[in-house]
């Protein structure tokens, strides 16, 4: 995209580089106590249920979080969305692939290239206004972008990647 600034590219490249050279690790993900809200499969290092890594809300809430205050085209007002940056999340489970296929409860599925996550600042939100989101209200997980921070975020691609009622992620090499 034309408005990409140089710093962003530089940090992205630096980060990707660091990611590629960092030796794979197998962190103990722990076992979900509550209802499983997300199942990650595919080429990942860390798993806790067979080949998959499964998470309840509590496990996700434990990860470093970020909050976007932004409007969306699907809601009527400013939303306060809190969640895990998608890239950080994938990193934390040792994902090694070029893209993910994210699938929602309503069977909506979309591919997101991993190397674009950092620049588009994709966030896997689990709270809105500090509360967990119900299935009726685009919960429990909703990938969002900081749309109000600039037109570069308000793209068709970002909108198509803004998958709600997210339940599955497959990391594809």
């Amino acid at each position, binding site marked *: 995209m*034309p408005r990409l600034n140089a710093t962003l590219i530089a940090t992205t490249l630096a980060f990707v580089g660091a990611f590629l050279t960092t030796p794979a690790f197998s962190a103990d993900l722990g076992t979900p106590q509550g209802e499983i809200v997300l199942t990650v499969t595919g080429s990942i290092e860390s798993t806790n249920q067979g080949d998959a890594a499964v998470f309840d809300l509590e496990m996700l809430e434990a990860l470093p979080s970020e909050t976007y205050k932004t*409007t*969306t*085209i*699907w*809601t*009527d007002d400013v939303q306060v969305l809190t969640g895990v940056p998608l890239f950080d999340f994938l990193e934390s489970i040792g994902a090694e692939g070029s893209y993910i296929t994210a699938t929602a*409860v*309503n069977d*909506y599925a979309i591919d997101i290239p991993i190397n674009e996550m950092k620049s588009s600042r994709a966030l896997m939100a689990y709270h809105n206004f500090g509360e967990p989101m*119900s*299935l*009726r*209200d*685009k919960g429990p997980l909703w990938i969002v972008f900081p749309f109000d921070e600039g*037109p570069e975020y*308000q*793209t*068709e691609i970002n*909108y*198509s990647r803004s998958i*709600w*009622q997210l339940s599955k992620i497959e990391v594809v090499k």
Partner: protein
Amino acid sequence: MPRIERNLKIDGRWVKAGALGFLLMISVATILYLGLSVSNKIQSQTTAASDNVQWTLAQMEVEYLSFKVATQDSLAQDKPDLKFVRTRFDILYGRVSTIAKGKIYAELRNAADFNAPLLAAQNLLDQAATIIDQDDETLTARLPELDRLAEGIRPLVRQVALIGITHFAKVSDATRLEVLLTLSRVAGITIALVMALIILALVLFQLYRVSQLNSLQNKQTSAHLQAMVSSTLDAVIVIDETGRIVEYNGAAETIFGFTRDEAMEQPIVDLIIPPKYRKAHMAGMKRYQKEHTRRVVGRGHVQLEAMRKNGEIFPCEFSIAEAKAGNRQLFVSFLRDISRQVQNEEELLRARDEALAGEKAKADLLAVMSHEMRTPLNGILGTIELMRDSEMTDQQKYLLRIMETSGNLLLHHVNDVLDVSRLDAGPVQIAQAPFALAPLLTELLDSQKGQAQRNNDTIEMEIIGAEDATVLGDQIKLRQILLNLTSNAIKFTHNGVIRLEVERHPSSNEFEFRVIDTGIGITEEDLARIFDDFVTLDTSYSRVSGGTGLGLGIAKRLVEAMGGEIGAESERGEGSLFWFRIPLPILSVVEPKSVGTGEEFVSPSARNQSLNVLVVEDNQINRLVVQEMLVREGHQVTLAHDGLEGTEFADREHFDLILMDISMPKLDGVEAAQRIRGSGGKSSGTRIIALTAHALPADIERFQKAGMDDALIKPITRQALNDLIQSKPSLKPVEPVETKRPMPSQINAAMLNELAGDLGVERVAKLVRQYIEETETILNEIYATVESAPDETLIANVHKMAGSSAMFGADSFANKLRWLETLGKTGKAEQMRYELPDLRTIWKNTRVALEVEIETHQHSH
């Protein structure tokens, strides 16, 4: 300079190219701007305000159907999958509430046919939610109720989807149209820009071709100029502002000796400027740089000296032009070696000077010789004249006559030669004095009568149109011309007629004089050269006539000196006609006097009174001759042998007249005359007459300045001596005698000149006018009272006029006045009264002469 022109053209082209470049930059900027704006437009299109709404709306139906299928499946099973039903419901609920709340559907929701079913659907879903949110048992029990609600939602969901899809199809059509319009606009602008670029390219191509052509022309011009510069015979050196040589052609190499390589980039001052001019050159360059004032540059040809390589300094002619080549100031100089030309000029000048010197030497020799010859000749002729009165046999008298004739002839020749050399010596002074024409002519012809009679010729005279005229001119020179022509005519005519015709030109001041004879005539080829010097035609005749051949040459010189022309016509055997025309302004017509009778002059000796005369003369023979002549006329003579003796005698004794030779040892005549005048001695007021063979006007002036009253040109004849003595009696006249001799001039121009020199022309002119006025007044008074006034009054008036008249050089008038005064004071008042009217005529002429003289003076200043 080609280079400079070229640079100018380059400058012009740069301006054009710059302008074009500017245009190009503007075009590129415009295209960039448009490109960016199109890109922004596209980006703004990509900044989607919509998700895939059609998909969302369609998905709503899909999700509704999934929910419906789930409820129906649950109804059919004993243990229905309630979780699945709940999930399907939640998904549908979320979808519908997204459409109900989402911003992208806000516009859609404004349409009633969209919003109403949507709200209805939401209402039903909320009712369903209350059932879904019950515990499993209740839900299971109320499943049929839920299915009915779901059934009710079906047409609403269908309607929302259909209307939404139609609407968004319209919106995307509009958006596409807008994008199309934008793109069309961009395309239009791009086409226009491309067109502009094509035109620009064409213009640039045209410019390129023009500049190509210019460059070709420049090259040609430059080549021509180069060829000219290198082939010109003039040295061409171009220097820059610092004086260094930047161009140096082949001719310069030849002239200065430095090769081009040696000269280029060298300061010109060290190379070709002679050391003595270097300082001036540097100063000139400095001045030019500082003030931009030019002395040499652009001034055309200047002559100076330049230096060759070998140090030789030579004259050269050069011109410098300035030229600008870009920022450089150049000086282009063209130099030509003119040393040969200068040398030739010098040789020519030398040759001319030598020739002139030779001419002068010849003229001097002639003048000296004739002068030296005249003195002994004077002695011979004088002695012959004395001898004539002594007792002689007839044979002796015959021989004496031959001697006299020969002597006179020789004298005539000598005089001719002297005349020629005098006329050639410098500007001839032509007197401007009034004289009566008729008496002059009559007298002249009378003097020729004897010769004419000897040849048995008759002389006739006719004056046409101006019989009584008094004219303004030089009567002595006119007399000489006429004498030469008539004597010539007589010489070549035997038993014929000599006719003198004088005719006044009716509309100008000119007079034509014609001397016609019936003599032997002149052949046509001889006519062409008769006015040349030393031309004697027929040898047999020349023996008889015995002329020097200078007569006509002298006449021609004199006529031309008077501003006239002379010519001759002739037919061999029939006779000749000599004519000349000279300007002679007519002053007045005088009463005809008793002139032209051909009467011999009354012998003066009969009436002359004895004078006491001092003769100062170193030459014994001359002394003797003069003494004899005077004694015979009854005068008393005292002889002095030189100037010193003469002054001593003059101091001691009163003389009535002093005859003073000029060239004398010890003290010359001029000095002696000055001393006598300044001595206050007894004869300091006596008339002094110069005896001289010198006759140049300057000499006469010198004599007059020395205080001499008149001059007698040697050789002295009794006639001339008597005329002189009678025309101007000394202060002790014995008997009044009226002169018949015409005055040479009414006024003494030298006197006026001297006065003008002392007082200034204007003042003298004023004084003279005053004098004229006064004299007129006095004269009028005299004439008005001549009958009644006592002698004393008349004498006093005459005296009053005399002093000032002499002062202003009115010699004739002054002399007449003195004479009248003398008469009056010596008891001859009757005679004085009798002669008084004569003053009128003399005064009239004097007045005219004075006025002419003043006029001339004022005009020449």
